[in-house]
């Protein structure tokens, strides 16, 4: 937390509203262009390009010491299937920042990774004890519910890559100041899949619905909001089965048998990582797809681990959260093409999936907000100033343009018409039919649809639940 006191003193005359207005514009630095993946994506010095921050301020004001940041993600085991994607995304973002000279061109960034599977709260506290300048992660919703209150106590900015449980900023931390999330909530991706199900299968063909979701807060939350969204779109339907297997279970037979027995028209799943692979392998063996269409929010997180046999036998409509590597066509979108090529050079990355951009995006959100604050303040900002700069902050990644939600008050979005639940990212979302890609020997998506943030996020003044319930009126 270098230079915090000085910069806070210098900014004493800038109130929050003025700062927010000021950080909305500004010119691009090499770091920002690098993070966006393309120098032509943003202008080369003009105001108002939306990715702000000149990185202004002298070396003595901004400092030259490296910035130390820590990230929680799963680095091993079944959850590592997606956790390592997040890690690699974050590493590429840091590499690009440092390649451009560091934050404001003068402060290199040191990224430390801690395994989220091993006492994540202790690891987080250790980051804080070590004086990390920012923290990132966690991935798990359950861990996020534990850590977010700690973040508020520690008063050090945290931008999680996922941890998408809807109630986090509605109930767990209803008035967040330092806790942010690059991804939107479970609600966003569940709404995408509800829309996809109705569009692709047809409302008249969905009378019965089942769900097989992870047995913890994320899975329960996803199933809850999916049903709410589907009810808003369809009206009546029967829920014939809801199973919640434990994380890392090796045997999904029980749940597959129950789904086959009920033979629903539609099955919803938010299984992810290794669990998604296990489920799909075993579902194919039990012919689950003969009578039931499956829609899933995050099964595509296992794109590198699914076998050809399984992908070709399973019929899954899969969500891709905020990023799909070939949408828009990467031949036509250089930032996406560069990211895709760079990612494939990294260890353990076959194709970058939505979690890859989550790792990349949470670092980018922080780095671009810091540079914008430096631009306004002329020195390195305090944690409070970085947090305020992040609220309503817009920034580019190779996945497109993102906006970080503004502050929420009393569980509802209030500021500046962001339309986003407080402190969560707002991005375009994607979904398509899962198919096998011969070129990359990995699962891919076909016939991909994209959804703008306003189609999948609640408007200002409403929580996600209120918004979905309003569909029925």
């Amino acid at each position, binding site marked *: 937390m270098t230079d915090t006191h000085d910069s806070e003193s210098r900014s004493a005359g800038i109130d929050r509203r003025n700062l927010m207005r000021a950080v909305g514009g500004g010119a691009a630095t090499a770091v920002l262009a690098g993070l966006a993946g393309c120098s032509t994506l943003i202008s080369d010095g003009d105001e108002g390009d939306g990715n702000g921050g000149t990185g202004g301020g002298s070396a003595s004001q901004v400092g030259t010491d490296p910035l130390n940041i820590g990230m929680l993600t799963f*680095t*091993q*085991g*079944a959850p*590592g*299937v997606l956790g*390592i994607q997040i890690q690699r995304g974050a590493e590429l973002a840091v590499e690009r920042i440092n390649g451009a000279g560091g934050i404001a061109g003068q402060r290199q960034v040191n990224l430390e990774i801690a395994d989220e*599977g091993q006492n994540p709260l202790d690891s987080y506290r250790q980051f804080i004890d070590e004086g990390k300048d920012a923290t990132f992660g966690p991935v798990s919703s359950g861990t996020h519910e534990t850590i977010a209150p700690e973040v508020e106590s520690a008063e050090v900015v945290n931008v999680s890559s996922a941890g998408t449980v809807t109630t986090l900023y509605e109930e767990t931390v209803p008035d967040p100041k330092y806790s942010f999330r690059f991804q939107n909530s479970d609600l966003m991706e569940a709404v995408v899949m509800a829309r996809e199900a109705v569009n692709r299968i047809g409302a008249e063909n969905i009378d019965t619905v089942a*769900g097989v979701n992870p*047995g913890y807060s994320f899975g*329960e939350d996803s*199933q*809850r909001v999916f*049903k*709410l969204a589907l*009810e808003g779109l369809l009206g*009546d*339907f*029967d*829920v*014939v*089965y*809801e*199973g*919640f*297997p*434990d994380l*890392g*279970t*090796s*045997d999904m*037979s*029980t*749940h597959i*048998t*129950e789904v*086959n*027995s*009920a033979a629903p028209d539609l099955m919803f799943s938010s299984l992810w990582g*290794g669990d998604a*692979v*296990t489920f799909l*392998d*075993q579902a*194919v*063996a*039990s*012919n689950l797809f003969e009578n039931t269409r499956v829609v899933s929010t995050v099964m595509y997180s296992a794109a590198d*681990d699914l*076998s*050809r*046999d*399984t992908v070709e*036998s399973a019929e899954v409509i899969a969500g891709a959260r905020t990023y799909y590597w070939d949408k828009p066509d990467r031949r036509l979108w250089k930032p996406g093409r560069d990211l895709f090529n760079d990612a494939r050079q990294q260890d*353990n990355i076959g194709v970058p999936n939505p979690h890859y951009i989550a790792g990349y995006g949470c670092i980018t959100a922080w780095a671009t907000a810091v540079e914008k604050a430096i631009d306004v303040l002329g020195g390195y900002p305090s944690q409070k100033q970085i947090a305020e700069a992040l609220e309503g902050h817009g920034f580019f990644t190779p996945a497109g343009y993102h906006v970080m939600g503004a502050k929420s008050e009393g569980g509802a979005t209030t500021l500046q018409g962001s339309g986003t639940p407080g402190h969560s990212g707002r991005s375009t979302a994607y979904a398509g039919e899962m198919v096998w890609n011969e070129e990359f020997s990995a699962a891919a998506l076909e016939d991909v649809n994209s959804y703008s943030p306003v189609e999948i996020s609640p408007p200002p003044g409403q929580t996600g639940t209120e918004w979905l319930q309003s569909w029925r009126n």
Partner: protein
Amino acid sequence: MSLDFTLPLVALQLGGPEIWVTRTLNGLQAGFILFLIASGLTIVLGILDVLNLAHGELYALGAYVAFTVFGGLIGLIAPSGGDPMALLFLFVLLALGAAAVSAAVVVPVGAALEAVFFRVGGIYERDEVYQLVLTFGLLLIMNDLIKAIWGPSSVRVAGVYSGINAIPVASLVGLNYPTFNIVVIVVGAVVAGALFYFFNRTKTGRIIRATAINREMATAIGVDTDRVFTLVFALGAFFAGFAGAMVLPRTSASLEMGVEPLVLSFVVIVIGGLGSLRGALVGALLVGLVENWAIALNPAVETAAPYAIMAIVLLVKPEGLYGTWGERT
């Protein structure tokens, strides 16, 4: 329609006879896998009087070794094409062969652990808390060794599971059921039978049981208890490794995979009676079956079912269903 947004309590899915047969088969295959793991744990506990917390890592090691073995052999079969029944036979043979080889690889590991850490380390004479600390330490060491050899990411083999399931054997009797699970049930039953035969009908088995019943007397009549102890630990490792290799084709091998089976194995041996092989078999099948039957009534009970059975058994028969090892297997 009324939607319940708390934990799921959906309409009862009782279904017809066919679905109950499927649920029972699910329970049997889960039970036999659990028995393979719990049997090793219970014989080590019954004879060596050691609660081996590292037992789950032997299970994981079996899965990882099987990954390597499969990797070497799968290429010989996958591209061959040809008669589907012949392919099924080849894949089953591959699965069993890999499981046997993997278990065999785990055996010297188990024997070495017993000889070095328990016998030479003098852990048998120490308080039980030392055993727990030691075996927990071994758990961590083995976990790190697996990570060092195979890396931090989970690994899986493609082709074996789908290859075996390509011939739907159960459809001969009108069932939609994976052939692989049937293989697990058959293999589990054969292994259980062989294990009981070994302890009841063979000289070595009887010596082991005699040692379990009265260690001093066995020593007095010339039994080399050191060898027996090493043999028992190696036997436990064999079955844990075998179980790990058997589950690999349908899931992944990951660093944390040993934890849940270890906990469930504790539940099984408490239900069956600490150290009782027969108790382990009955307990494992009971847990597998009740878990699968109960989920039909309410999916939310899936996790709680094994512990509920254990609680009931402890209330009714605190020593477990079959008491302790030795007098009866």
